[in-house]
């Protein structure tokens, strides 16, 4: 594996999950969820608390992290989003309400960090969660496990959305809420489940990212521009596009920093966030609907037909 690839894959997996969670909520409830930042931080904090107090690897705590993130999503929905959606609030209002929720979660996570320090003598303000990882094929296990978890969640979500009655009802509500309501589908339940899945994905994403970067109580706040960049690169209207966008943003950052610092100097490290953002801007200039708007089938079709012609 190239030197940047292990960390890049771990980081990109986390970013893909958070970008996917932003996209899922946007297509179902029209809400840009800024609270994804603190939900991700909570994911890291709980995984850290688990390994510090009870031992084991961070992976053991991922189910718990998912449940905790889902609960945060439920609180956001029943405490805020549901009331605003019923009043047909504008997108900007929906978005700002999540910013308020994010600030509340951020304050509580800071208090929780102090509690861990005062009670258990832990120091969660600068954590290398990767210290609790193990080796697999000469690399950190996270480089294999986390992409599998991210892709596994995507596949599970795909099966849920295409093969189950409620999943198809979710797609129906996303496409046409009025007709879905007239069919007897309760949109309230669809929105609630979206928040549950999205909260869980954000929290696991945060725990995953903390396996590549230094975990801090403001980790989510520092990385939220890239989470949104992933969702926007994906086209905002496609869940699969959002997850792919997150992967691309994460991998580009690590690969870009590695190769550019070799070519033009280590000063580029200071601008590392700019590299994936330039990729996002360039992609959107060429394909305004993002990755989901690229005619992949046509592109691959042309590629194959050209290959056949060469032969």
């Amino acid at each position, binding site marked *: 594996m190239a030197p940047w690839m292990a960390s890049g894959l771990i980081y990109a997996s986390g970013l893909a999950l958070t970008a996917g969670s932003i996209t899922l909520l946007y297509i179902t409830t029209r809400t840009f969820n800024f609270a994804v930042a603190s939900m991700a931080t909570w994911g890291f904090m709980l995984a850290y608390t688990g390994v510090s107090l009870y031992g084991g690897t961070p992976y053991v705590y991922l189910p718990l992290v998912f449940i905790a993130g889902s609960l945060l999503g439920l609180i956001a929905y029943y405490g805020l989003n549901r009331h605003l959606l019923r009043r047909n609030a504008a997108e900007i209002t929906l978005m700002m309400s999540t910013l308020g929720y994010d600030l509340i979660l951020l304050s509580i996570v800071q208090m929780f960090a102090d509690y861990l320090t005062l009670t258990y003598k832990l120091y969660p303000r600068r954590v290398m969660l990767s210290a609790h990882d193990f080796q697999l094929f000469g690399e950190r296990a996270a480089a294999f496990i986390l992409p599998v978890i991210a892709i596994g969640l995507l596949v599970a979500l795909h099966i849920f959305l295409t093969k189950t009655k409620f999943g198809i009802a979710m797609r129906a509500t996303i*496409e046409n809420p009025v007709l879905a309501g007239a069919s007897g589908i309760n949109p309230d339940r669809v929105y609630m489940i979206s928040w549950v899945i999205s909260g869980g994905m954000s929290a696991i994403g945060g725990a995953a990212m903390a396996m590549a970067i230094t975990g801090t109580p403001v980790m989510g706040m520092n990385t939220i521009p890239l989470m949104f960049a992933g969702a926007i690169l994906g086209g905002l209207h496609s869940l699969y596009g959002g997850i792919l966008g997150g992967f691309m943003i994460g991998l580009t950052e690590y690969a870009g920093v590695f190769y550019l610092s070799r070519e033009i100097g280590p000063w580029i490290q200071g601008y590392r966030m700019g590299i994936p953002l330039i990729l996002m801007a360039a992609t959107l200039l060429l394909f305004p609907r993002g990755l989901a708007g690229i005619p992949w089938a046509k592109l691959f079709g042309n590629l194959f037909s050209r290959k056949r012609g060469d032969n």
Partner: protein
Amino acid sequence: MLRIRNLNSGYGKLQVLYNLDIDVPTKGLTVVVGPNGAGKTTLLCSIMGIARVFSGDILYEDKSIAGKLTHTLAQKGISYVPQMGNVFAELSVLDNLQMAGYLSKKEDAKAKAEQMTEIFPVLKKFIHRKAGTLSGGERRMLAIAMGLMKDPKLMLLDELSTDLAPIIAEKVMMEVSRLRDELGITILMVEQMAKRALEIGDTAYLLVSGEVRYTGKADELLNEPELCSMYLGIKQADDKGSSFTLSATDEGSDQG
């Protein structure tokens, strides 16, 4: 079955309907006609909890349903077929039918979907195709089939003939009268193709600028030359006979 009393409704702060009184008798076909922008679609949206009811009441089986959430009305047996966006374009025909039968048990929904493909054979051919790829007429058939999947007591049909070729629109109208005659379903139909709708309807309401201008038997409205000519674009062929000709607008479409 459905009684609307002194209804004032609209969207946000905009009032569209004024003091509406409408009765929809059980097992009858009630037709609401009127020019563009009369508030016909708003009437159906008000019943379905999509538009905002400012005052007045909507009684369904003698219970108030004004302002109720849309999905709860579907549970009560009211089926709504909107004018636009009446199928899930991204889902297959089969998934559309199954979503329409969302409230039924899986086996019941499956049996009902099969029954729908017998009533509308054209759907069987395209059962696994995305609904968005169907033609206008096929989509309308699917929309009606979806409305029927719920075993409705009351069907609200919004401008079924919109954007359809006259021959297809005629077929759709025949289907509507069959729903009343053979299945005994109570229907409230809003329609721009006024002449044909009035021919098959039992009771008619003429809606103009959000107010009712005519209430009575459907075929008798056709004998009101002034109203027909002024609001429905139906003109008398000659002074002596009672036959009418269609003007261009009679086959047009609007958002009501």
